[in-house]
């Protein structure tokens, strides 16, 4: 029975080791590292080839000039990594000094509510950031004590924005005899009938539950087109109760169902992702693509035809929002440097680099942009912000909403579910989510 005794000794040893490790983890906070004093760590996830990436490369340059004695560690990570990790990373001892994070109640709101981010309200008013980040662009920079967006302290500063538009193939439009972009929804439907008569699918769409966002954007664009500011804000910021059986939800969803029936968005969307919808448009198989400015650079590079963009004709509000946010971790050792960094990213030099490369800077000057299409893109964005006509993305308000909406979009696109069935489910899901969000 010697082996049994050995085993017992082993088990005891392992238990003691495990316990001591656990205790060390609990008590180890006293020696929290403040040894990173002269290195300034920036963690972000923008692809260096994009407008934002190029703008920030410029910002690093300027920042180094302004702070010659600081070593800048500019780290590249991924959107998914920050989304999954931020909570763990920022609770640890070794936190970055400034971090890019995703907006919304489920992401940024959680970080703010758990005290992992430094409130920026004082800096915002002192440095005048609220003059650059205004209206709908500021909505997801502020979170209340429950982590709900819309009001409360500032926790993040966006540099750029995004909005949803139709990219259209001018050659296909010409062939179908369409010379002007319609100005209202009826005109838009008539135009799509013309395209259908030519045997062309009007809108390139997708409804896969994995990354097939186009149908959701068509649906919410239709709701936004008929909605007013208060109706969207009630829905988005969990204020007054939302009745999904009333307009704009009822009419928007009914129209969406009709568009599916009429074939405006194509067939067999259940398995398509946005990438495939984009390729279908670029191959000339479809007349329009609904997407945000995220694919603008790619379409500029890859389209073999003449193209343009417009937003939903006759719409009250247009889908869009501010971009990702800069935040300062509560455990950051270099908070003043972090504020200087955010200030740098909002400076005209950086903002105009973003604008010229097809990004949508919040404080840029469109007249500095030479390329006509890029300037029009930027000008339309500024117009929407000035008119307070941005309706955000529909999945922001309650946790788990994206998956819920996506699976229903797929069901509707496959014609397994009609508008009223969807709206009923939506009401139940939203109300339940709201209850858990607003104690």
């Amino acid at each position: 029975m010697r082996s049994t005794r050995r085993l017992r000794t082993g088990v005891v040893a392992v238990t003691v080791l495990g316990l001591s490790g656990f205790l060390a983890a609990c008590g180890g906070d006293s020696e929290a590292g403040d040894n990173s004093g002269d290195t300034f760590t920036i963690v972000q996830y923008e692809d260096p080839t994009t407008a934002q990436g190029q703008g920030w490369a410029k910002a690093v340059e300027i920042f180094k000039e302004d702070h010659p004695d600081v070593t800048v560690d500019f780290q590249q990570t991924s959107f998914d990594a920050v989304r999954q990790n931020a909570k763990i990373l920022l609770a640890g001892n070794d936190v970055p000094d400034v971090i890019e994070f995703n907006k919304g109640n489920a992401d940024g709101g959680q970080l703010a509510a758990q005290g992992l981010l430094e409130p920026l309200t004082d800096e915002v008013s002192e440095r005048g950031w609220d003059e650059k980040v205004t209206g709908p662009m500021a909505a997801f920079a502020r979170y209340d004590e429950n982590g709900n967006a819309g009001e409360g302290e500032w926790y993040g500063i966006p540099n750029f924005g995004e909005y949803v538009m139709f990219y259209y193939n001018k050659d296909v439009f010409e062939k179908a005899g369409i010379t002007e972009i319609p100005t209202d929804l009826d005109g838009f439907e008539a135009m799509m009938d013309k395209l259908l008569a030519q045997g062309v699918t009007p809108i390139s769409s997708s409804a896969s539950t994995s990354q097939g966002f186009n149908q959701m954007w068509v649906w919410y664009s239709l709701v936004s087109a008929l909605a007013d500011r208060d109706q969207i804000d009630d829905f988005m910021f969990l204020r007054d109760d939302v009745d999904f059986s009333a307009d704009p939800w009822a009419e928007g969803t009914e129209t969406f169902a009709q568009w599916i029936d009429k074939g405006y968005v194509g067939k067999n969307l259940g398995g398509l992702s946005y990438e495939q919808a984009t390729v279908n448009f670029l191959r000339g198989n479809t007349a329009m693509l609904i997407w945000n400015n995220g694919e603008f650079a790619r379409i500029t590079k890859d389209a073999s035809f003449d193209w343009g963009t417009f937003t939903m004709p006759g719409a009250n509000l247009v889908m869009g929002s501010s971009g990702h946010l800069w935040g300062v971790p509560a455990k950051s050792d270099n908070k003043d440097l972090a504020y200087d960094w955010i200030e740098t990213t909002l400076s005209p030099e950086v903002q105009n680099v973003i604008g010229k490369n097809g990004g949508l800077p919040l404080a840029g000057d469109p007249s500095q942009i030479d390329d006509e299409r890029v300037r029009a893109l930027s000008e339309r964005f500024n117009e929407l912000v000035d008119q307070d006509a941005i309706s955000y993305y529909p999945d922001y308000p309650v946790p788990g909403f994206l998956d819920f909406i996506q699976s229903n979009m797929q069901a509707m696109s496959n014609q397994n579910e009609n508008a009223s069935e969807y709206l009923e489910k939506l009401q139940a899901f939203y109300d339940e989510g709201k209850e858990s969000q607003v104690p």
Partner: protein
Amino acid sequence: MSIPSDTALSRSRPVRPAEKRRRRRTPREQLTRWGVLAVVGLMALATALPFLLLVVNAFRSGTDYSTHGPLSWPEAWTLESVRGYLGRVDYPVALWNSILISSVVAVVGVVLGLLAAYSIGVGRVRGGGGLLAVLLLATMLPQEALIYPLFYGAQATGTLNTVWSVIIVFSVLQGAFATYLLSSVMATVPVELLEAARLDGANRRQILVRIVAPLLRPTMGVLVVFFFIWTWNEFYIPLVLLSDPASQTVPIALSTLRGQYSIDITVLNAGSLLSLLPTLVFFVIFQRTLSRGVTAGAVK
């Protein structure tokens, strides 16, 4: 997870052909054999197809992909995407990290498993079955449930953001699986063999090194290969424990290519291909020693 290892393990048992004598086959039999060949060929093609697509789309330009789609033959072969990938990601560093982590884990995991399995499988300790169940549980737990303790453990030991945190975690996790598997294989080793060795004056260590380990070599070889590949492909735990780019592995470097609203498909393909090649090379090299090990075991 255990399906591939089961099929690989079954090959370590000698298989005797059902019929030794040769006889003429009827035309009908001939036809069936050709039919089977055709079906197997088609299945092989279907298996290879995704890989071929990956290669085709890794060596074409983004514009070509966008205008002709993923299924067409490229207009021109280009290294544009490969260059794009290497320009965006520090591939040599990630490659080195991945090779280091996967190799160390593969070897340490199997050695740990062998030692632990020896005490359970041959030593037949009391409660061995319960221990195995606990170890199996460790491999079945979703990694999300483990991540907080692992993160704080790595932080307390100062291994956070170094490859060692991941090496320790996966050595233990894979070691648990190896223990489970090796101890059940060890239970099939004839007791007479061990007793004979003991009568010849071999002590426990000698029995392990001279008798048991050689008998289990084929199984351990298979485990090394699988542990290497599984660890190579691990994503979630390395993602959390290795946030510093200097310690990142290949799959994590690959994930930095994906944005929220845009994907550069050809660059992603080129990156995937470059990430996949090392495991492929490893597998091809070890496949040979593997089959040699299998036959060596079978003769015994």
